[in-house]
């Protein structure tokens, strides 16, 4: 009973946290539309900005803050990092508009999306 309660609490917190995170992302992308660089942190087996909007020409850098290796792989093959150990980074410059869905090929339940639009 105690266990079940703890899990529900955790899920509620996670939902609340992701709602906050999504709001922040939305606000940031409106507030700073011209940013040419963005960082996605990998922590606790998640991409901390699961949906990130940038302008064409922006460079996105992923940083692995986990103590387990991860990768960043575009589903359609336009980018694919080598394995990123703790502290390793991978950058990719998005030249053209479009949507890029990516995942960690080691832990495929980890997914994210980059939206590139002018």
């Amino acid at each position: 009973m105690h266990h079940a309660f703890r899990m529900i609490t955790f899920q509620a917190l996670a939902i609340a946290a992701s709602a906050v995170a999504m709001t922040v992302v939305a606000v940031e992308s409106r507030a700073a539309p011209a940013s040419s660089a963005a960082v996605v942190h990998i922590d606790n087996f998640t991409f901390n900005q699961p949906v990130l909007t940038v302008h064409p020409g922006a460079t996105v850098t992923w940083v692995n803050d986990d103590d387990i290796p991860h990768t960043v792989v575009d589903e359609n093959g336009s980018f694919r990092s080598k394995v990123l150990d703790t502290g390793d980074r991978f950058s990719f410059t998005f030249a053209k508009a479009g949507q890029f869905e990516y995942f960690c090929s080691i832990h495929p339940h980890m997914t994210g999306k980059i939206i590139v639009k002018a």
Partner: protein
Amino acid sequence: MFDDQRGARREFLKCMAWAGTGALFAFEGGVAGSIGLDAAIAAPKAPPAVPPFTFVQLSDSHIGFNKPPNADARATFAEAIAKVKALPIRPDFIIHTGDVSQLSRDDEFDDADQMLKSTGLPVFFIPGEHDMLDADGGKGFLARFGKGSKGAGWYSFDHRGVHFVALVNVADLKPGGMGNLGPEQLKWLKADLDARSSSTPVVVFAHIPLWTVYADWGWGTDDAAEALSLLRRFGSVTVLNGHIHQIAQKVEGRIAFHTARSTAFPQPAPGTAPSPGPLKVAADQLPGMLGITDALFVRGKDRIALIDSTLAA
């Protein structure tokens, strides 16, 4: 044969004594009946005596891992190897159910290889996702540990009347998904099993569990149901997995599922932490959360007995 079994049982009891704090799972099954029936149809004589034997499962050695709670996964793997060498019954072979290495580096594979070779026992490998991280997606692992295997590293072999099937569910993983066997491997599995009678005991091993332990963390295999449907007609099926660094078990019909401990670091129980990252336990607690699995096969009444013991025991 009865005497053989008595002897095996005595040895088995010794094992239990040795296992100490380890958990013991012994499965009763309807195997004897089907064997007796087959033998009776084939020839009116006693079924051939298959001597008891043991094999050891090692898993998730993560050679190269050096972060909390384990600064040296090589050292804890060496302890596990020492335990294997000290077993009261010398196992016929070892299976390693994947994540041999942390980062698929050649020196990590080599260190694991050298330590395993020191046992003098044959070792059968399947890759974990950490063994597929080289630029060629697993070629380094296959070149060293996958000789004679098919596809991404799957194969089967027979040992003293038991059919062993090694499956790979860490290759070509799909976005948003869990473990994956893929149509090519499933086709091969069907042909491989079609050639065996239902009375053949089967042991299947794969890295990621072949049943869904916890979908939110990807702890399952998307197309496992297809593989399991091919296995249901067999009288005794034992599925041995790793990946989740803790013991989990389930019996479904005549299929017994079991996951082994890691020799490197424990992971949290499903849903008890924000992520499946290493469980950062205190140094004095670590040995009690790492371990090996010893499997005893006695042809007859009992299913395979799996004896888990920790590095603390």
